[in-house]
C-alpha cells in the first residue's frame, strides 16, 4: 500500500472483520455491526481491537445511539479534538465506507450536497438519469450508507439548508427528471463543526433541530492526553518513516503539561491561574509539536528529543497573536516555568526560542 494515509476501513479491516465475526447482537437495518460493537471498535477492548478514541465512553454511546435512532449526528468541538477522526471511524464501522465525504468550505455549492449535471450529456441527450452526477450524499442515500459533511458551519446557509429535506423526509426530489431518490435503510449523516467558528454560518434552527449534538471535549486528564500524544506520535513517526529517535517521554510529558496548563488557564496543581492564549492549544497541535521536535532531533540533532527541539514548536503554537499571546507566554514562562524544578533547560530554550 503506497497511499500516504489509507482509509480507516482499509487500515483497520482486520479489526472490523474480527468484530463482525463475533457480533451476535441485533444490528440496525443497513449496519455492518451492532451498536455495541461499533462502540467497542471506537474505544478498543484492551486486546486485539485498538482504541481509536481515547475518552468518555458515554459520548461514544450517545453518538452511536443517535445514529441508531435515525437522527443525524453533529460533532462539535474546538479544533484538534478528533471530530473528523471519530466521524471517519463511525462511518467505517457502520457502513464500511468512510469515503462519502463533503468538505464544507465557504465555496461549497449546492451540487456538492444534492446533485450536479454532466453538461455534455445534458446538452446532447437532454435531462436523463445518466446525465445526473450524484453527490456523495446522494450516493449514500442510494446505498444506505453514512455520508459525512466536514465543517458544516463553513458552508453557506442556503446550501446548508439543502440538508433539511434529506434529513427530515429522507428523500431528495429531482424535479428536472420528475423523480426522487429515497434514502435506503442505513443512510445517515455525520456532520462536524468547529465551535470556535460558531457564527461563521450558524446553522438555522430548522436544520439544527435535525441533529443530535455531541460535543467532543479536550482530554479530561493529563494521563489521557499523554496517552493520546505518545500513541499518535509513534503512529505518525512510523508512517512518515522518520529516523529512529529516542522517545523522550519526559519531553512529551512536558509538552503536554504546557499545552494543558495554557489551555485550561491554570497550572496542573490548580494553584496558579494563568491567562490563556488565543490559539486553541489542542491535542492535535501538541502531537505536531512533538513530531516536529522529533524530526528536528533526528535530522539536525543528536537523535535525542531535547527541550530545544520542542521549545520553538511550542512557542509557535502559543503565539498566534503577536501582541497579546506574547504577554501570555512571557508571563507563563516567568511565573510558572522559571520556578518549576527540573525545567531550567526548557525555560532557557523557550526564552531563547
Amino acid at each position, binding site marked *: 500500500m503506497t497511499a500516504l494515509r489509507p482509509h480507516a476501513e482499509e487500515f483497520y479491516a482486520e479489526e472490523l472483520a474480527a468484530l463482525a465475526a463475533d457480533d451476535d447482537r441485533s444490528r440496525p437495518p443497513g449496519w455492518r455491526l451492532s451498536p455495541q460493537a461499533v462502540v467497542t471498535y471506537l474505544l478498543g477492548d484492551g486486546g486485539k481491537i485498538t482504541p481509536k478514541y481515547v475518552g468518555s465512553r458515554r459520548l461514544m454511546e450517545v453518538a452511536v*445511539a443517535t445514529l441508531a435512532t435515525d437522527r443525524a449526528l453533529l460533532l462539535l468541538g474546538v479544533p484538534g479534538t478528533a471530530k473528523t477522526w471519530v466521524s471517519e471511524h463511525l462511518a467505517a464501522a457502520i457502513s464500511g465506507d468512510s469515503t462519502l465525504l463533503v468538505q464544507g468550505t465557504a465555496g461549497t455549492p449546492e451540487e456538492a450536497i444534492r446533485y450536479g449535471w454532466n453538461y455534455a450529456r445534458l446538452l446532447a441527450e437532454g435531462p436523463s438519469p445518466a446525465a445526473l452526477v450524484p453527490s456523495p450524499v446522494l450516493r449514500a442515500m442510494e446505498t444506505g450508507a453514512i455520508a459525512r459533511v466536514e465543517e458544516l458551519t463553513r458552508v453557506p446557509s442556503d446550501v446548508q439548508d439543502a440538508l433539511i429535506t434529506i434529513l427530515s423526509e429522507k428523500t431528495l426530489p429531482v424535479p428536472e427528471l420528475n423523480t426522487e431518490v429515497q434514502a435506503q435503510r442505513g443512510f445517515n449523516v455525520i456532520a462536524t463543526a468547529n465551535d470556535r467558528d460558531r457564527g461563521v454560518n450558524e446553522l438555522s434552527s430548522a436544520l439544527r*433541530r435535525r441533529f443530535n449534538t*455531541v460535543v467532543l471535549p479536550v482530554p479530561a486528564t493529563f494521563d489521557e492526553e499523554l496517552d493520546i500524544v505518545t500513541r499518535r506520535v509513534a503512529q505518525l513517526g512510523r508512517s512518515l518513516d522518520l529516523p529512529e529517535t529516542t522517545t523522550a517521554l519526559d519531553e512529551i510529558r512536558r509538552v503536554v503539561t504546557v499545552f494543558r496548563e495554557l489551555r485550561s488557564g491554570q497550572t496542573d496543581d490548580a494553584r496558579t491561574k494563568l491567562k490563556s492564549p488565543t490559539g486553541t492549544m489542542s491535542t492535535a497541535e501538541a502531537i505536531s509539536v512533538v513530531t516536529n521536535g522529533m524530526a528536528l532531533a533526528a535530522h539536525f540533532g543528536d537523535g535525542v528529543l531535547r527541550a530545544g527541539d520542542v521549545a520553538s514548536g511550542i512557542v509557535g503554537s502559543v503565539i498566534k497573536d503577536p501582541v497579546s499571546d506574547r504577554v501570555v507566554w512571557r508571563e507563563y514562562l516567568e511565573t510558572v516555568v522559571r520556578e518549576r524544578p527540573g525545567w531550567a533547560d526548557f525555560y532557557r530554550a523557550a526564552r531563547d526560542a
Partner: protein
Amino acid sequence: MPERYYGIRHHGPGSARAVLRALEEQRPDILLVEGPPEADELIAWAADDRLQPPVALLGYAADNPRRAAFWPFAVFSPEWQAIKWAVANGVPVRFFDLPFAHRLTARKAAPNADKPTDPPTMDRSPGDEHAAGTSSPDGPGSEGPGLADPDANADRPDAGNVDPGGADGATANADELDDDGPMPGPPAPELRPVDPIGELAAAAGYDDPERWWEDVVEHRQAPAFEAIEEAMTEVRAGALEDPYDLVREAHMRTVLRQVRRTHNEIAVVCGAWHVPALSAKFTATHDAALLKGGRRRGKVRFTWVPWTYGRLASWQGYGAGVDSPGWYHHLFTTTDEVVPRWLVGAAGVLRDEGVDTSPAHVIEATRLAEALATMRGRPLAGLAEVTDAAGAVLCEGDDLRLQLIGRRLVVGERLGEVPEGVPTVPLARDLEARQRAARLKPSALDRALDLDLRKDTDLARSHLLHQLRCLDVPWGEPDERRGSTGTFREEWALRWQPEFSIRLVEASGYGTTVVAAATTQVEAAAAKAATLAEVTALLETCLLADLPGARPAVLRALDARAAEDADVTHLMAAIPALARTVRYGDVRRSDVAAVAAVVRGLLARVYAALPPAASGLSDEAAAGLRDHIDAVHTAVALLGDDAERARWLDTLTALTTRDDLHGLLAGRLTRLLHDAGRLSTGDAGLRLGRALTAGVSAATGAAWVEGFLAGGGLLLMHDDALLALVDDWLAAIPADAFTEVLPLLRRTFGTFATGERRGIGERVAGGKGKSRTSTAVLDHETAALSLPTLSALLGRRIE
C-alpha cells in the same frame, strides 16, 4: 409477625415507597426510627404542615454549639415518610439510635476536639481527616456526625471514606463534624461500606443504586425487605465490624427490648446495614457490657432547620451528598412516564431561560434516552440516559444549558420551611457567648466605642464587630468622624437592630459560630468577586476580622483574579497596600508570610505585562501609569528583597530603551533608575539633553522634563546631585538652542511655587552644594540623648 425490620437506603425513594407500603400492610403500634433519641419531642412537629422538607434536625452541645451535626430529611427519605405516616396514623414514634450526647462525650476525649477556630473546610490536619473518615461510615448515623447527608454516599459507595475532607465540606455548617472520634485509641481504618445497598448495586453493574432497587428489588415482586436483610447478612458476614457500629447496635437492641415489653406490633426503620445485627440474638448483658463507659451525658439541644436540595447534594463540588435530590424527588413523586415527564420538565427549564425548545425536541430526546438504555442493556432509562439525551438533543451540546438543567432539576432548588417556635440556632448562642466574653451588650441605642487595639479586650471586640459585618450584621459601623491617625485606634458606632436576629438565623447556614460563618462568607465572597480590588478588600477584611481560615481562599482568589485581569494598572494598584502589610505586619498581630508570596506573584505578572501596557498611551493614561509605577517602586523598596528589586529595575531599564514610550514615563523612569544607581549621572544628563533637542516634539520634551523632575521644586532645591545635573545640562546648551528649550523649561518650572523657584535660584547662585556638605558634623552625645524618647515612641529599643 410482632416486629419487622425495614432495612432502607437512606434518602432512597425506592426504599421510601417500599416502607410506606409495608407500614400500611403491617399497621404497627409503635415505630422505631434510626435517629438521635434526644430529638424525640421534635417529632411532633412533623404533623405541622408548615414543616416542609427538606429540613434537617440540627443537634449541638449546649455548652459548645460548634459541636453540631445535622440529620437531613427530604420528602423521599424513607425515615421522613415513615414518620409522617406514623404521625398521621397516631402511631408513637421513637428515635432509637445511640444518643447524640454519647457521641459528644466520647468525642471530647479525642485529641483534636478542642481546636479553637478551625474553618469548616479544607486545610485539615491529617489526623482530623482520618477521624472524619471513620466517622462517616456510621450509617444513619452516617447521617449523623460524619456527614450531613449520610446517604450522600449512596451514589458512590466510597465517597465518604475516600474523601473525608469532602465529607466535611458537605456540612459546611457543622465544623466540628470532623472530629467525631468515638473510639479511643488510633482511628480505625475504613471498616465497612458507607452505602451497602449502593455497593450491592455497583457489584451488579449499576451506577445508580436507585435503579438497582427498582429493577432487582421492586420488579421481582418479592418481599423487598426480607431480600435486603438476607443480602446484608451475607455482606456483613464478610466485612470487618466497626466497633462504633457495634455500640450503636447494642443501644438499638436495648431500646428494642424495652419496647417489646409494652408493644406488640413494632416497626423498625433503619439503615439496611444494621438489620442483621438487630435481628440477631444477643443477651441484654452482652449489650450492657458494650454500652458501659459510654453513659456519660452532655447536654445537647435539638432543633429543626430548613435545608435545601442544594446542600443535600453539596453542589459546591464535594462528592458527599445525594448527587441528584431533584431526580430522586421526581422518582418519588412520579408514578408513570418517568422519562418523558422529566424531559418535559427539562424543556420547561430551558424555555424559562428563553431557549426555544419544541415538543419535537422532547420526543427525540425521549427516543434517544430509550435507545441509550437499550444499548447499555438496561430495562429503563435512568438519570445517566436522560442526562445524555438532554445534552445531545435539548441542549444541542451546550454545556451551560446542561448545567442549568443540573442545577434546577437534577439537584433542584427546593428550600425547606420550618415553622415559627423552633428554638434559637447555635450561631446566635455563640454570639451571646462572644458578647459576654468581650463585655459588649447589645443595645438598641446608639453608642460610640473607642477601641485601643493594643489591649486584648479591645482587639477581641474589634474582631467580633468586623466578623459580624462579614455576616451582614452591621452591629457596629466604623466611625471615622474624629480622624485619628494612629493605627491602633478604632472608633465604632454601635446599634443593635431587631432584624439582626433574623440575619443571624440566615447566616447560621454558613456555620455554627461567628468565626466559622464569617470565614465561609468571606470565602464565598472571594469566589464570587469579579475584580482584583474586591479581593484585595476581602484580604484586608481577613486581617481586620482575624479570619486566618479564610485567607487561603482569598489569596487563591487574589491569584486567580490577578491572572485574569488584563489591566496591569489593577495589578499595580493592589501591590502597595499588600507590600505595606508585609513590611510592617499590622497592629493586629496577623501572620503575613502568605501575603508576601502573593505580592511576589503579582510582581512577576507586572514584570511581564508592563512593557506592552506602556505603549501608545494618552497623556492621562501615562500620568496614571506613572503614579502606579511610583507606587510599585516604593512598594518594591519596602519589601527589602534585593533580588526582587533587581528584577523590577531590570524591567524598568528594558522599558527605557524603547522609543515609543510616552515622554512622561521616559523622564520618570530615567529619574528612578538614576536614583537607584542604575544610570550614571552623565548618562542621565545625556538623556535629558536628548529629550529636549529639535528631533523631539515640544510636547514630548515637556512631558519628559515633567516626569524627570517630578516631586516638585522642593526636591530639586535639596537634592544636590539632581540640581547639579540639571544645572550642568542647562549651562551646556548653546545660546541659540537655549531659546528653543526655554518655553519647555518654563512649562515645568512654572508649576513650582514661587518660594521654591526662589530657593532654587539662590542655591544655584550660591555655588554648587557647598553649604550642604559643610554643616554635617554630628555631635553623637547630644544625639544619643534623644534615643530613649525615640525608643518609647516607636515601641522598640534603639541603640
